[in-house]
């Protein structure tokens, strides 16, 4: 695609269409608000293109089917929301352990439990990182604008193939259900869309077990048990150690390649706003307003949430007098910022909304003014 088409799509439609663009040919899921439109659209699109759409009996089975679809050679994805994401955690761990590429979309809603199904929240970022048991790293992307949702969905498939791992696309209900004008990116504006054997040649070192799928004429063995490089179960301490270090380091050591943020007016900023997802849009408006009042404030909007951009944030915190973290949870990002800063004297302030309404520009602006008065 070399010419930009102008469209009017909601976030969930964008994800479905971008997944198709990225070569997704296998979807298994179980409908859950506010993600259901992704399944609805792919149930039409995938069969048209010769792909597979499965509505499974529950969220757990859906994640199992995604792992199976990917092991069979498909580019597989599922979409869910907080409660379903909880149920997927065991099979998500299986995908991590077996190094099975797949994309899991979590359209976050208010929780815990059934919570507020139709209201936005950002309370699943820690579940994305630590929801499944055992040592591992994960890649989670948090786009904020329509064109970025498209781009990051395509990138999610690319990264999952490169690093042989599930990639979580974490969006919130505001993004999922806002229908908006935007231009579809051209091929050159997107990450590569390639078949699996392309990755097999370039990135074989990212797979601890042999980098093969079923039905390729190879004898392969896939297990959730800790395994050796042949793919067979082992308890030899040195090999177990090496395999887990592999799972963690194949992503952590490539942090710089995976990291993506938006920086806005940070060069001379005394106050930095650090946020992600839809609160980034409110924050940008607030930065513009505060700048008109002569307040030196800038914005860092995180697009690759995991692995966490800790070095970038540490450098940023060292260069400003105060940090404001708007988020639709009670302070999960703020805690990570505090850890990344590695300082006890950071002037760190939250704007936290969990009532099911988005953070507004005025919420952020009021906090900027308050923090500025105290500088």
């Amino acid at each position: 695609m070399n010419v930009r088409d102008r469209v009017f799509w909601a976030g969930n439609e964008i994800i479905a269409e971008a997944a198709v663009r990225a070569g997704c040919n296998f979807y298994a899921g179980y409908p859950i608000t506010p993600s259901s439109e992704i399944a609805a659209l792919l149930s039409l699109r995938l069969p048209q293109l010769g792909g597979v759409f499965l509505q499974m009996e529950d969220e757990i089975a859906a994640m199992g089917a995604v792992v199976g679809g990917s092991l069979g050679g498909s580019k597989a994805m599922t979409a869910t929301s907080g409660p379903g994401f909880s149920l997927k955690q065991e099979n998500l761990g299986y995908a991590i352990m077996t190094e099975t590429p797949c994309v899991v979309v979590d359209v976050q809603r208010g929780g815990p439990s059934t919570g507020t199904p139709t209201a936005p929240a950002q309370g699943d970022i820690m579940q994305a990182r630590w929801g499944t048991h055992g040592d591992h790293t994960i890649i989670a992307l948090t786009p904020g604008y329509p064109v970025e949702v498209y781009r990051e969905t395509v990138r999610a498939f690319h990264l999952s193939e490169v690093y042989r791992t599930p990639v979580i696309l974490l969006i919130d209900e505001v993004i999922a259900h806002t229908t908006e004008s935007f231009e579809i990116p051209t091929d050159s504006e997107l990450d590569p869309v390639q078949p699996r054997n392309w990755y097999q040649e370039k990135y074989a070192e990212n797979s601890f077990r042999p980098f093969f799928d079923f039905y390729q004429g190879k004898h392969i063995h896939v297990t959730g048990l800790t395994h050796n490089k042949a793919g067979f179960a082992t308890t030899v301490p040195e090999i177990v150690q090496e395999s887990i270090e592999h799972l963690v380091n194949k992503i952590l050591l490539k942090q710089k390649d995976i990291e993506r943020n938006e920086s806005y007016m940070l060069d001379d900023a005394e106050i930095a706003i650090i946020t992600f997802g839809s609160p980034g849009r409110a924050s940008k408006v607030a930065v513009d307003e505060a700048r008109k009042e002569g307040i030196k404030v800038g914005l860092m909007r995180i697009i690759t949430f995991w692995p966490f951009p800790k070095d970038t944030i540490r450098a940023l915190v060292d260069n400003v007098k105060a940090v404001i973290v708007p988020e639709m949870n009670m302070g999960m990002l703020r805690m990570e910022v505090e850890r990344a800063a590695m300082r006890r004297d950071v002037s760190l302030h939250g704007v936290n909304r969990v009532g099911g309404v988005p953070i507004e520009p005025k919420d952020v602006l009021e906090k900027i003014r308050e923090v500025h008065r105290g500088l």
Partner: protein
Amino acid sequence: MRSEIRFAGVGGQGNILAGEWVALAAHNMGLNALQSPTYTAQVRGGPTTVDVLIDKEPLGYPRLTSIDFFLCLAQGAWKLFATQLRDDTVVVVDPNLVKNVGQGPQMVYPIPIIQITKQAVEKPVFTSAVSLGIFCRLTNVIPRDNMIHTIEQNAPAGTVEKNLLAFNTGWESVEGVIPVPRNELSVQNA
């Protein structure tokens, strides 16, 4: 120029559809448009609203902060969504359904939207198109012809004629309606 529009009511009235069509009409005119619905876990009967934002410039915050036009078809929705109103916001309510509009400086157009929909098109399902007719007549955001074109392109098969009838009913219904100061409307209904 930035325009902020909100249709509110209860699920099933077609308010979200009205917002979708306004935003789509603006998108098709080459403007930047977005529509963002809010609804409850109930399929029907829960308070709903749709925010529509239209601008020549790129859109920032995707919800409304300073509303130009607000149409409300349910008391419960009024309570939740009559926010971000300016002094000069154009407000429309169905006086049979929204009786208490509280205090405020706005002028309110009382138009019995559900009743006139039933009279003209027989089914209340066409309320959304009636609302669009009222919206187009009272604002200069979407020209009448563009709105009609969007309805023709997007109405489900077999319903175009009735939707256009409903749109014209809404357009005509504004004729002769004198807006009432919000404070006085509350007193009348007290």
